[in-house]
């Protein structure tokens, strides 16, 4: 079982849910931090021992000037504008390159080769029974999906896997969600929360993933998120109440389910709801 924890809006509690679910699991579990632009899981589940590290690379073209005839075939072929011909000389722009290799295929003089370029770092470690994997985009790099895909591809786990997704609804979120079997969408009872939830629902539906909603900071005002879920026939799996103590504990990097033990059953209940959601294959989600 691989579950993606996503949200649309940022700051609704994806990481809060991910880390507390991971340490309230009944057995061993894997948690992958796919918010590679701003990974935060390590602040809550710090490495207890050794950390394994590897670099994520993207291939990019390098020009053998002696062989290049400056014919321009590669410039024309590259749809990302990562190559340009200026005054009879070929230039490459590695940060625009998607590593597709099309330029090499069209080059008739054998003047192009590929070299790897570091775009991010993967780190793995253990925290109690949790195996943590983290992707971290190098600062100044744009290509977050490459790091997300690398993290998801490296992790073969027999245990349940939780995937902490980045905010938003664009290609980074798709990269994280596509690799999962089901989705938890975390939202808050505000107009922003609801608006972005509807966008995240659209992504989950397009990817044909079963999904349910977790409402965070529920403040008792009977609201529009509940009405939306009901109208759209979406399962509202659980509600975490608005409690300043949760915000304070999280701000210190503490695990809410440990320092406020009255909330531990909440995360255990989310596990059961998730398992029910995944067992339910008749398309009602």
């Amino acid at each position, binding site marked *: 079982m691989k579950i993606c924890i996503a949200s649309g809006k940022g700051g609704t509690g994806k990481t809060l849910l991910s880390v507390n679910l991971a340490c309230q699991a009944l057995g061993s579990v894997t948690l992958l931090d796919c918010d590679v*632009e701003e990974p*935060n899981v390590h602040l809550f589940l710090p490495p207890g021992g050794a950390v394994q590290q590897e670099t994520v690379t993207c291939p990019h073209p390098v020009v053998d000037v002696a062989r290049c005839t400056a014919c321009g075939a590669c410039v024309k072929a590259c*749809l990302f504008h990562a190559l340009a011909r200026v005054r009879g000389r070929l230039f490459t722009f590695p940060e625009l390159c998607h590593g*597709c290799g099309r330029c090499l295929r069209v080059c008739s003089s054998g003047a192009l080769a590929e070299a790897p370029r570091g775009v991010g770092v993967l780190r793995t470690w253990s925290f109690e029974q949790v195996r943590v994997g983290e992707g971290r985009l190098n600062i100044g790099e*744009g290509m*977050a999906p490459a790091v997300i895909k690398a993290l998801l591809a490296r992790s073969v786990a027999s245990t349940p896997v939780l995937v902490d997704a980045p905010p938003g609804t*664009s290609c980074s979120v798709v990269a994280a969600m*596509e690799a999962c079997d089901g989705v938890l969408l975390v939202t808050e009872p505000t107009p922003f929360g609801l608006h972005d939830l509807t966008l995240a629902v659209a992504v989950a539906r397009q990817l044909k993933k079963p999904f349910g909603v977790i409402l965070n900071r529920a403040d008792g005002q009977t609201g529009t998120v509940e009405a939306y879920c009901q109208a759209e026939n979406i399962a509202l799996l659980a509600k975490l109440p608005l409690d300043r103590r949760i915000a304070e504990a999280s*701000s*210190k990097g503490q695990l809410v389910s440990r320092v406020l033990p009255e909330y531990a059953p909440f995360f255990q209940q989310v596990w059961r709801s998730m398992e029910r959601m995944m067992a339910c294959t008749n398309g009602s989600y």
Partner: protein
Amino acid sequence: MHEWVILSGKGGTGKTSLAAAFATLARAPVMLTDCDVDAADLHLLIEPEWGTRIPFFAGYKAHVEETSCVRCGTCQQACRFQAIQSRADGVLAVNAFRCEGCGSCQTVCPHAAIALTQPQRGYWQKGIIRFGHFLHAQLDPGAENSGKLVALLRREARRLAEEKGCSIMITDGPPGIGCPVIASLADATQIVLIAEPSCSGYHDAERLILLAKQFACPVSICVNKWDINPAMTDALHRLAEKAQVHWLGCIRYSSAFVTAQRKHKTILEIDTAVADDVRQIWKNMCVHTAYR
């Protein structure tokens, strides 16, 4: 022209609320742009009078012509994104979510059975707001090229601001530090970093400051919900001093932000104590950047 981009690294720290408040405090007309194109919310606070929607096309998607395809699988081997999949009936089909739009499959196909199309990825539109002009975009859920859409919005904003004689451009930026954030930084004169006093907020602010340094863009910082964790607020203050980031001040934790959203109002119209915090930050920003 003053071009302020409001960023945070971490999501949900109050970028949009601050952008709306700043726009009401600036000298009209203001050019206000929502660059969080895959989860745009600013329009919910300021309720613009909308212009027409303009479609946004970017990138490419491959498509296999079933009638010409002989199912040789050459394209499958060439695709580095595992986007070409065999359907149950043996026909090859492109998974649009995985397709990077590079065209390698088209290059290698011996039967010219692959076409590239430029799909619509979303739309953008202008709006009139009570304190000036507004630009907004919506990327289709799950679409790519958010950076290109942000770059388009920033370009259009600059053009519109000059045409309408705006005194300032205020941009509500996307979360993170990746491609759309980098696109939003083009020609920015100041980044307004709104941070949250939490270990996540600190970590993310630190990465954003490093990004800003790479692009040589000056940063000013304010802290939202400072009283949730005063020790972390102090740590952010020290970070600002160390990184030579201008300190703007703090906003207290308040339910007024949620109340304002629910009433489709800016924070200045709701709670006096919080409104005073925001006004002070605005004043400090004006003095710091010599904006009048």
